[in-house]
C-alpha cells in the first residue's frame, strides 16, 4: 500500500472507532467502513461487496444499555484491510478473497469487543477528571476531556489498522492461496448461515406472542421474489397501522357508531 492510502485508511479507522461508541453517523457499520476503505485503496467494488455481506451479518448487532455487542468497527476495518492486501498481492479471484475476509471478520469482532470494554473502563478516570474540572468551573477542560475520550475510542481501531497496513501483501496472499478448498468452501457455507444469529438477536428483543404472526407473514411473503424490500417495508407499515387501529377500536368497545374509522384516523394523525 502506498503512504497516502495508509494515511487515509488510518483516518477511516479512526472515524469507525469513534463511531463504534458514539453510534451516530454510522461510520462503524460495515457497509460504510468497508466501502470507504475500498475507495481509499483503489478497490471500491470489492469494498462495497464486502461491506454489504458483512452488513447482512451485523444487522442485529447493537449496544443495549450497558451490554456491548460484537464490535462492527474492528471487524469491518480489519477485514477490509486484509481483503485489500490480498487483492494487491495478486490473489486468485476476488470472490474467494471476499468470502475469506468475511470469515476473518468474526474473530476480529470479538477482539474489538474486548478493546472497547477496556476503553469504557479507561473512561472512568476521564469522567473523574471532569468532576475535578467542574469543581474549578473549567468548562474548557471538560470539553477537552470529552474529545479525548472520543479520540481514545478512535485510536482503539486506528492502531490495529495501521499495524495491519504494514503486513506484506504476499504473506496474506500466500496464506489465502494455501487454504484448501474444503476450508474456504466451508467458510462460505458458514457465512451464509451466520446472518441468522443477528436476526435472532433482533427477534429476542422484540418478540411477544402478539407480534409473532407478523414474523410469519414477512417470512412467507418474502418468497415472492418480485416483492422488493421497499415493497415489503410498505406492507409491514400498513399492517402495523391496521393492527394498532383495529386493536384500539376493539379496546374502546365499539361504543359509538363510527368508532373504528375514527380510531384509525387518530392513529394516522398521531403519526404525523
Amino acid at each position, binding site marked *: 500500500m502506498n503512504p497516502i492510502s495508509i494515511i487515509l485508511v488510518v483516518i477511516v479507522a479512526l472515524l469507525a472507532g469513534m463511531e463504534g461508541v458514539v453510534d451516530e453517523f454510522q461510520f462503524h457499520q460495515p457497509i460504510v467502513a468497508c466501502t470507504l476503505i475500498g475507495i481509499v485503496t483503489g478497490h471500491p467494488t470489492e469494498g462495497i461487496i464486502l461491506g454489504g455481506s458483512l452488513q447482512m451479518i451485523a444487522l442485529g448487532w447493537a449496544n*443495549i444499555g450497558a451490554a456491548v455487542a460484537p464490535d462492527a468497527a474492528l471487524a469491518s476495518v480489519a477485514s477490509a484491510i486484509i481483503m485489500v492486501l490480498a487483492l494487491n498481492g495478486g490473489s486468485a479471484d476476488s470472490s474467494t478473497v471476499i468470502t475469506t475476509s468475511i470469515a476473518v471478520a468474526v474473530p476480529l469482532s470479538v477482539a474489538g469487543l474486548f478493546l472497547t470494554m477496556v476503553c469504557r473502563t479507561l473512561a472512568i478516570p476521564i469522567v473523574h477528571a*471532569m468532576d475535578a474540572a467542574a469543581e474549578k468551573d473549567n468548562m474548557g477542560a471538560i470539553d477537552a476531556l470529552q474529545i479525548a475520550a472520543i479520540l481514545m475510542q478512535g485510536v482503539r481501531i486506528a492502531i490495529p489498522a495501521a499495524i495491519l497496513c504494514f503486513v506484506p501483501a504476499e504473506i496474506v496472499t500466500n496464506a489465502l492461496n494455501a487454504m484448501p478448498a474444503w476450508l474456504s468452501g*466451508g467458510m462460505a457455507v458458514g457465512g451464509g*448461515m451466520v446472518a441468522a*444469529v443477528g436476526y435472532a438477536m433482533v427477534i429476542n428483543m422484540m418478540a411477544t406472542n402478539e407480534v409473532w404472526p407478523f414474523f410469519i407473514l414477512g417470512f412467507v411473503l418474502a418468497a415472492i421474489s418480485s416483492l422488493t424490500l421497499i415493497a415489503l417495508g410498505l406492507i409491514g407499515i400498513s399492517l402495523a397501522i391496521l393492527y394498532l387501529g383495529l386493536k384500539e377500536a376493539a379496546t374502546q368497545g365499539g361504543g359509538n357508531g363510527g368508532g373504528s374509522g375514527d380510531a384509525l384516523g387518530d392513529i394516522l394523525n398521531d403519526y404525523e
Partner: protein
Amino acid sequence: MADKISLEKSDRWAVCLRHQFLQGSWNYERMQNGGWCFSMIPAIKKLYPNKDDQIAALKRHLEFYNTHPYVSAPVIGVTLALEEDRANGAPVDDAAIQGVKVGMMGPLAGVGDPVFWFTVRPILGALGASLALTGSIVGPLLFFFAWNIIRVAFLWYTQEFGYKVGSDIAKDLSGGLLGRVTQGASILGMFIIGALVERWVSISFKPIVSTVTQSDGAFIDWTKITGDAAGIKTALTQYASLGANGLNAEKVTTLQQNLDQLIPGLAAVGLTLLCCKLLKKGVSPITIILALFAVGIIGRVIGLL
C-alpha cells in the same frame, strides 16, 4: 424579572450538535454522564453568569445518566426548559431536574432500542446491503444519507419538542403514544426480519434424494440437435417448455428441492429459531457464530451442505 435570560435557537442548536457525542466518554461508572454535561455546557454558559452557579450546574449534570443516544434528545429539551426556568428564579431544585432525567431515560430507552436499532437500522442496512452486494455504490450512499437525515431531524425536532412542552412531556410518557410507537416498530421489525430470514439466511442441502430417468420428450434429445443456428434455436425452444429438468435425461432431485416444495427457507427459519433459543439460554452470539462456521466446514467436507 425585566431581563429574562432565555436560550435562543442558536444556543439550542449548539446543544443539539454537542449532544451527538453523548456516548463519547461512555464509562462503566456513570455511563453517559460526561457526554451529557458536555452537551449542556453552551446552555450553562448562557444561563448562569455567576461562577458558583456554573459549578453547581456542571456538577448537577455529571450525575449518572444512560439512555438510547437519540431519544435522549427530548430529555435534553425538557432539561433545557427546566434550567431556563431555574436561571430565571423559578423554584426548580436539583432533585426535580435529576428526577425528570431519570424518569424519562428508562421509558424512552425502551422506545429507542426497538425503533432505531431493531427496526430502522436493520431495514436501511438490509436495503443498502442488498444493493451493495451487486457492487453498487448506491447501497452505501443510501444507507449513510437516509440514516443521518432521519437521525439529525429526529435529534433536533424532538429536542425542540421537549424544550417547548417542558416538564409536561414527563407526564405523557406512560400515555398511549409511546406505547403505540414501540409496538408499531415491533410489528414492522418482526415482519421485516421474517422477510430477511427468508431472503438472506442461506442453507442448501446438497444430498441427492432421487435420480429418475425421464421419459422421451421430457428432456432434450441432444443427439438430434444439429450444431448450427437452427439447432441452437430448437434446443432453446425445447428448453423454454421443458425447464431446467429437460437438460439431462436423468432428473436429479436434491434434498433442498424437496424442502423448498414445503416452503422456501424452512431450514433458514429453523436455524434462526434455534439461535433465538440458544441466545435465551445465555450462549454468547460469538460462540454461535463460530459454531456455525464449524458446522459449515464439516457439512461441506461430508457433502451435506
